[in-house]
């Protein structure tokens, strides 16, 4: 869907994404880094159960909410930093199912 401009000299940073170590471009928001590397799904909606993807990229739509260092935040408003723990919880189904 999006490709990274290879001429920009952004260094990569190591983050833990969904439990695994991943190398992502730096100098941009987490959402941009994920979109630019083909990881377009940001979360599973707790209400529809469907996969969501960033929509507005400016902090309005909240589709890019994901767990960043333990707290749910907008990925498009959070700059990517080395060592961040990012979890999109993509394996979860409907979050509000009572067990």
């Amino acid at each position, binding site marked *: 869907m999006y490709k990274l401009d290879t001429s920009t000299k952004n260094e990569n940073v190591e983050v833990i994404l969904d439990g695994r170590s991943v190398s992502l471009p730096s100098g941009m928001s987490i959402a941009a880094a994920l979109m630019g590397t083909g990881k377009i799904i940001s979360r599973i909606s707790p209400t529809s159960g469907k996969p969501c993807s960033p929509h507005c990229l400016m902090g309005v739509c909240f589709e890019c909410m994901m767990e960043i260092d333990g707290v749910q935040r907008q990925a498009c408003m959070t700059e990517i930093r080395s060592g961040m723990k990012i979890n999109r919880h993509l394996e979860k189904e409907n*979050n*509000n199912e*009572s067990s």
Partner: protein
Amino acid sequence: MKTADIIIIGGGLSGSAIGLGLIKKGVSKVLLFDEQRPTQRLSRGNFGLTWFMCKGADHPVYAQWSRLACKQWPEYASMLEEETGYNVELDWTGGAVQAFGEDEFKAHQENIENLKTVCADVGLDYPVSMLDREAFSDLIPEMTLGDDVSGAMYTTEQGHVNPLRLLGAMRCAFQKQGGTFIGGKSVYAVVPQRDKTVVVKTGAGDFQAKKIIIASGHGSKRLMASLGETLNIYPQRGQLMVSQRCKRVLKVPVLSVRQTMDGTFLLGLSTEDTAMNNRVTADAMKSQASNAIRLFPELAKVNWLRAWGAIRVMTPDGAPIYTKVKGYDNIFAVALHSAVTLAPLATNIVAPWILGEAGHPLMSNFKNGRFNV
């Protein structure tokens, strides 16, 4: 002029519940007016507990009344779902009030003993017990208790519900069974006529009815005053906070923290004297957040989404007002907080009472005039 059998001024929890009761009793033309002013939608400020626990410590009649309401709740919820398809999310999982430290534990124990006595005096049981920390923890295995939680008072015979869905459901049932709902129009005046009917002047024109019920929350005071009686209510602010949706782990509602069926945590509930100011304050939010984290530390990382305030209709003794306006046989007024808990009674007991039926023996305790003694 347009006519009706009964006009209800105020389509909030109480007005809608009573309207539903009247329709069920076969009244043919019932009009329910609701202004839909956002600041006056008091059901927003209701925590959603359908509780009798802790109620009526110095008012045995109120204790009885709340208990009676709780007993009717499960059937009330099923009735609404059957008739409208609305799931009001009644979760009959009991309720708890936490104690922090030893002093609070003792205080709760005393509170239970006191209410047992008060209830026994009127022939009622009070099935509440005190749980120690371990028992409380066993009750809600998926939650971790904060370090200084010493225990909780607990009962199984109550639950919690979605107040706003409840409002939608009651109004839907009312309309489905023949009631007329007029939303977004104000009622300016109530004008009793010589022929014992009453004319109601509204934004949708004038209407004439045989009976009028004033159930407009804080707006009721003005309408009562025009009829020559002071309604004994005063405003009391409550602030609440809600979180983002989370996986459902807290199955038993606790007094200041409950997790709704859609997974959001509701925190509250303050009690403040701020006249009609319904803004939220940073210190209330901070204290509610601290309290919630003190109770359940894992809430620390949960996102707080919204805080809001609502102004309760409070009466001097905390019990409801169901009253005939002085000098009139056909004009009634209702004013109360806890309209969620008491909704079944509004439909099942208050509505028939308005129609002149013998009524429940407890009804005579809720006159507006009782404060003038």
